[in-house]
């Protein structure tokens, strides 16, 4: 499905991403993890042809991404630049529907599972710029998912969402995968969600893929060790809230 060969990206002479080879097979759910500035978003932006690699080749479905065939079956949401903020949530989803050639009836049906995830009725008519970050993000993620893409690319989808919405999103991703077998590439800082959802983890550090392996029972611990997460050993009196404050 995705083929990356000898790709490098440099900014001001500094290499920010260097991927000798990376593949994604049809139907895989891949978690992309790494510290801030590791190169995850650059990786996704390269895949979506939003930035140009300095060297190398990227193909989706056997075709170079400089063509636009892959866009017909790819849903994506990276950040607020994927939202048109002077439209309401409903207007934005209606616009996305036309891009992917869905009729109103088809779109209505496709949106049904997302109704419990989307902002409530009161917010549906507000312009996206007037919504909270989390609610606007829900609209953006829904826009990427409801068109039943064969390839789904999401950057930090769980960040800024409240806990129930995170769980709901996880379920929606699972349902989408079960229904369509879509290939998913999801970057996240939330190691629990990623290991829970993805069947493969790609760890990026300083612009290089350092680990790329199937998710197993030990993956979460390995990732925690990599990120230097220490067990909670703080003394009780230090951890307790200050009741006199």
């Amino acid at each position: 499905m995705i083929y990356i060969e000898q790709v490098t990206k440099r900014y001001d002479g500094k290499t920010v991403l260097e991927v000798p080879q990376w593949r994604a097979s049809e139907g895989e759910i891949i978690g992309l993890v790494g510290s801030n500035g590791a190169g995850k978003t650059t990786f996704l932006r390269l895949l979506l042809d939003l930035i140009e690699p300095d060297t190398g080749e990227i193909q989706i479905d056997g075709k170079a991404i400089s063509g636009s065939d892959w866009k017909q079956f790819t849903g994506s949401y990276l950040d607020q630049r994927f939202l048109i903020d002077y439209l309401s949530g409903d207007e934005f989803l209606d616009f996305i529907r036309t891009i992917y050639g869905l009729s109103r009836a088809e779109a209505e049906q496709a949106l049904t599972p997302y109704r419990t995830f989307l902002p409530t009725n009161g917010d549906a008519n507000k312009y996206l710029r007037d919504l909270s970050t989390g609610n606007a993000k829900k609209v953006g993620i829904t826009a990427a998912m409801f068109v039943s893409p064969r390839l789904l690319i999401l950057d930090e989808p769980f960040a800024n969402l409240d806990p129930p919405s995170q769980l709901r999103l996880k379920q929606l991703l699972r349902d989408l995968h079960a229904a369509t077998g879509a290939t998913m590439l999801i970057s996240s800082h939330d190691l629990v969600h990623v290991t829970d959802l993805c069947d493969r983890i790609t760890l990026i550090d300083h612009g290089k893929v350092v680990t790329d392996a199937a998710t197993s029972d030990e993956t979460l611990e390995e990732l925690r060790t990599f990120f230097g997460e220490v067990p909670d050993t703080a003394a009780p009196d230090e951890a307790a809230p200050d009741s006199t404050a």
Partner: protein
Amino acid sequence: MPHSSSDSSRRIRPRSRVGARKLLPLLIRQQVKFRIRSFKAQGKLGSSIVMTLFGAYIAFTLFTLGAFLPVFVEEIRAGMTTHALVDRHTVSTLVGLFFLRFLLQKTPKVQVESFLHLPFPRWLLVGFFCAASVFSAHNIFPLIFAVPYAVRHLAPIYGALGAVQWVAAIVGALLVSNFLNIYVRSQLTNHERKVLLGLGTLLALTLTDEYLGGGVLGSLSLAIFGDMHRPSWMLAASILSVVVGAGLLASGALLDSLRREDPPAVPLAEAGRLHELAERWDLAGHLIWLELRLMWRNRRPRHYLVVSLMFSTVYLIFLLASPGVFDGVALGAVIGLFASGGFALNYGQLMFSWESNYMEGLLARAVDTRTLTRSKTIVLQGSCLVLFVVSLPVFMVFRPDLIPLHVAFLFYNAGVTTQVILELATRNRDGVDLGKSGGFFNYEGFSARHWLWFLPTAVPPTILLIVFRDTPSLAWSILAGVGLLGLLTTELWTRRHARRVSRRKHAMLSGFAIRT
């Protein structure tokens, strides 16, 4: 649980408030850095050279006019006293400069807002940025005329003190105009219609008085500035108090506007019907519908729309109704270009930049550049037709003999101007943040290149009109013919623009990302 003394010593103690005396130098240093760095960040040598030369040319012209005004007055109005002429036209000049300022000068609100989250007192921020706004080109350029005029002409007649007092009065008037602009624009946020109506009425009255010879402004000007060169402590104190009053009024209005939120956008009338129409046009229709909502729901593009409509109606009436004003052949080209192509010329130059906030989202999805470019071409060509229809009654009433010119320029603007403007738009890498544009007539996203690009649009028809000045109907036919050819080859141009967008999209997106 009781806390030990070491625990309580770790608690953060509230810090003492930093006084304005310490914060003010901090603000000044930050502003100096901001000015220097934003000048360096422009990084466009060609544009900087052009703008510097343009500024130097204007400064030189103003200086020459001020230093040698009696010579010019003798040439134009022989026998008239120079200072009487100046005193008579000072107020109308200041009113004209105020409108120019209103259209071009940015409000300090955006600068103030970027500091609101820091522990600066609001009054200090507002006062500081209002005071900093006086170092604007709108206040400095007029003095390049006024100072040499006072030194060379007023000082020998009224003495150094009289000349100084007159310059002080001009400085005071400019400062009042500066503060009044801040006041008016602060009111725009919540009283847009009232403010625009008020200013439109004032402009109409001023132009009527000036062109139809009412003489009210002239008499007012003589009453105010006629005695300004006679030294008087009372007059000096009056000037000072008016300036301080205007400064307080502006600061108060700016402070008040910070407490208010922007009003919700106005829904587009007939939305349902237009939406249904867009549905029939598939993606191109939806992109046009999106562009219309962009124009209507965001203040800056909406102002372009309103101003274009005003030019094609109110301002056009003054141009066509004033006897003698329309004698120049070059002015015919300007009227023709702007009457139907004003919106395309202004809005069109930023055609892709308007969408810089979400261009990534469009290009990552199944929106092909050809459909995107086609929708933009239709919007610009449609705007030419709309403005043509709106301005046609003005031509019919005041200059029916110029209707063929208007028709010729409709074809030229729709067929040629829109394509030239789109060509420029595809080269643009400067983003426009719709959410932060705020001020009226903010020129964010424009560079010297945009102003220079006006030349290939305006020069050919001007030259044509000049060359065929004795047979204007031939010139109009050629213009219409070229425009028709442009219209017939629209699809070819669209493909060319689309290819350019595809080729340059990474450069465009990286430029837009700096803004967003």
